[in-house]
């Protein structure tokens, strides 16, 4: 089912929670809402679910206006960070809850319910746990049961609020693959909220980066990672460094020396240059490069990184250490950018 969100505004008292949020999601997509806490991502998810309501704007489910529908009537499956399983019910009864809650004429028979529940338990790979109670399950198992419960009502949309947020790192990684796999098999249109960029980039078809109630960027994981459209996205996702230049007649100057940067055209005035460590080449110091002193060497996963102190105020930037040449701490080096982002500084 396509989901269309337009012009959403929401505030809690005086603090704006969402500001003019527009988003369209195609049927079958797996979308991540990624942002720091307070960015409005959970509010957006709850508005889609009907657990919260916007001040203005609309939510269209498959072209039909759902803005004023109650959560009960939206037919969405919601998975909560802390599972929200019904403690006093067995796993079976938890999953069957949504089917049994239907009005009598739409309610399947107990036999049909049993078939459904068992199929869902198979789907979440926990076929033997039907008689257990939530307290007897591990966190990862609870969350998978919560998925099964949400999917039991044949939702038009699956909404996940930090689904792996309460789990430890190892289980999180396992469940990421599990979720990706589950999505491939069931094809539910899915929106999930996370503050974990690895999770978003690894699992989602498209990532919606949010900050302070606004959408900063929407794009495939590669787009969001390789071509951030704002300083926030550079800083929030992946590693990045920054230095500032002054542009005169289209030519950038770093502390009054002209430098070469990988941009076709630059607006005159002060600009902040953002770049990723892997988009750099470190060379001998030469006029025209960003020159500095090596302050440290460190390992970051597969890569080795150089910390360079550049300019008069010795700003530290990170660059990829070259394979063919060794730079020791204290040595001078020049930095060449392969790509990056330039953002005009206000004032």
């Amino acid at each position, binding site marked *: 089912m396509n989901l269309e969100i337009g012009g959403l505004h929401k505030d809690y008292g005086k603090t704006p929670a969402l500001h003019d949020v527009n988003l369209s999601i195609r049927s079958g997509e797996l979308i991540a809402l990624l942002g720091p806490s307070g960015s409005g991502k959970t509010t957006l998810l709850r508005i889609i679910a009907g657990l919260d309501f916007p001040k203005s704007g609309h939510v269209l489910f498959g072209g039909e206006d759902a803005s004023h529908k109650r959560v009960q009537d939206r037919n969405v*499956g919601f998975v909560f960070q802390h599972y929200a399983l019904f403690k006093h019910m067995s796993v079976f009864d938890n999953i069957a*809850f949504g089917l049994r*809650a239907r009005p009598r004429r739409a309610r399947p028979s107990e036999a049909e319910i049993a078939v459904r529940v068992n199929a869902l338990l198979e789907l979440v790979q926990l076929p033997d746990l039907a008689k257990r109670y939530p307290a007897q399950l591990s966190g990862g198992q609870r969350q998978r049961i919560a998925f099964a419960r949400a999917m039991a009502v044949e939702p038009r949309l699956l909404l996940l609020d930090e689904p792996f947020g309460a789990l430890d790192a190892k289980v999180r990684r396992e469940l990421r693959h599990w979720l990706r796999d589950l999505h491939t098999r069931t094809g539910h249109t899915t929106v999930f909220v996370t503050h974990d960029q690895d999770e978003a980039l690894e699992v989602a078809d498209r990532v919606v980066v949010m900050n302070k109630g606004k959408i900063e960027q929407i794009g495939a994981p590669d787009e969001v990672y390789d071509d951030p459209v704002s300083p926030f996205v550079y800083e929030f996702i992946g590693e990045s460094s920054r230095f500032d230049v002054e542009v005169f007649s289209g030519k950038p100057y770093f502390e009054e020396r002209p430098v070469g940067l990988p941009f076709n055209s630059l607006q005159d005035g002060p600009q902040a240059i953002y770049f990723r460590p892997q988009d750099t080449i470190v060379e001998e110091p030469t006029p025209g490069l960003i020159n500095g002193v090596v302050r440290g060497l460190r390992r970051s996963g597969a890569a080795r990184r150089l910390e360079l102190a550049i300019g008069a105020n010795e700003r530290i930037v990170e660059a990829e250490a070259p394979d063919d040449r060794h730079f020791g701490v204290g040595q001078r080096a020049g930095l060449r950018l392969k790509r990056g982002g330039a953002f005009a500084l206000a004032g």
Partner: protein
Amino acid sequence: MTVEQPPTAQKFRSPTTEAPVVRLLLIGVAVFCMGLFFVLPMAVVFVEAFARGVWPYLANFVDPEVVASIQLTLLVAAITVPLNALFGISAAWAIAKFSFPGKTLLVTLIDLPFSVSPVVAGLIYVLLYGVNGVFGPWLVAHGIGIIFAVPGIVLATIFVTFPFVARELIPLMQEQGVGDEEAALSLGASGLSTFLHTTLPNIRWALLYGVLLCNARAMGEFGAVSVVSGHLRGLTTTMPLQIEMSYNEYNFVGAFATATLLGALALVTLAIKTLLETRYGDEIAGARRV
């Protein structure tokens, strides 16, 4: 196999444990006070009740006045406890799950009966509904008797037992939040079904616990009821009032015999309460009252 302890091991003890002498002294004081103030008086009640044997004891319970007082007490509890349970659930629901103007005031007001003397509570009702009270003339004109009648006793008891259920539920429901309810609603359950299948099961033991305490207090209340009852024999005397009247008439066996019933009620309440606490302690846990 016994493991050899190094000889120095006994010299160390946990930093929070006191010396044996101090421990003995503290435990001794506690046990002595408990015995002096609770166990001994309780024992006296039973000893006095049976002072002249079993028959006078049993005879007390065929006295029509005593029977009437037991019936009245049961009636008052039967009206008061469900009403307070209903009120307690609504108040706790409102306070824990919504935010609205005046919420803090409501929380404070719920505690009011704990801080007001029961006698004052009784007097308030006399001033409101008594013959010379604010609504007195209107009530008299319409032939409605509240003070010196059963409705007054029920009102006073409701006032005194007001906070019991609510205070039990508020911290629990606040801690539980609305996650389970949201889950049920998102699965398509109606409001009523959500309440019956998620909210109520989540609070059932705390609710039972609150009801139990509320019941014990409703049956045992003396001060507020005494003011509004008028002590009409066989009509407006509850068990505590009956006990006082028997005692004042030097009918000691009668007074203590009736008291054993209330005492037994207290013991049963305590037993159930202890059982609930050991079995469902986590669910009941919440702020213990003043």
